[in-house]
């Protein structure tokens, strides 16, 4: 499979949306470390980032934020 057939699959590959057969075909080619696919996947990852950023921020109250942060740092200490 040549790279030109893969370009339209990159974003869906990174999003995990391809059916296994297509995902395997992309994965096999990617493992050849094709430079063209590498750049295409990098560009696709930016599109995926954009799609993930389309929701508005969800803010908590200052107290809830503070609790969440404290909980995160407490879990670090237990590691």
């Amino acid at each position: 499979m040549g790279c030109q057939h893969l370009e339209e699959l990159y974003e869906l590959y990174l999003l995990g949306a391809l059916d296994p057969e297509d995902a395997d075909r992309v994965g096999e080619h990617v493992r050849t470390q094709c430079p063209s696919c590498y750049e295409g996947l990098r560009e696709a990852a930016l599109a995926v980032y954009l799609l993930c950023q389309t929701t508005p921020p969800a803010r908590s109250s200052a107290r809830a934020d503070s609790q969440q942060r404290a909980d995160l740092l407490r879990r670090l200490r237990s590691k």
Partner: protein
Amino acid sequence: MSDAALAEDLLVRIRKRDREALGELYDRCAPRLRGMTLRILSERDSADRAVREAFLHLWEAAAPISPRAGRNGAPAVSSRSALSDARLDGPPGASAAAWLTLQARTMALARLRAVRTGGAVPGLEPSGQFVSWLPRTEEVEIVDRRRDLLQKILNQLSRPQRELLEKVVFEGCRETELAEKQGEPVAKVKSDLRAAMRFLRHRLRAVMGTWGANI
């Protein structure tokens, strides 16, 4: 300073095991990450947990490698962090903010799948799928700065195309699964999704300055 640039600065301190730096990164980035995980999980507590897991994973991934033994029992060859080691396969300056975003999505979708199947919520699993291809910090900054324009581009998609993309991004649906849900032929769903991605890719190139187009 942009979130993406701040994330890079804080990552330097996080690699040195500065917990407060992780807290600062959380303060700055959590609301937007929570917006995404809440969209995926529709439940505040689970959404918060998914965000927290992404930050914990960042902490783990940025841990310095032991000077005595590398990962998988191999001798360590440097004191680079796991994250920067992973970036050896990726572009210089790959974005930590993008890494966090994609990790949070992965964590939230794993929780969503566990809820749907009645299975256990998975533990802290590394997800290296994106690491090699992470966008650069400066690219993420452009996307963040031009969010309004990019939203306009997304709004130019047809409603069915937008709905398909949302199900892929926020519900983790595969193409065949989508076809079943929509009651449409698989070929049509694949064609619609790929056309939407093609449109988005070309417009994104225009925004990034790598392709000319009127938006």
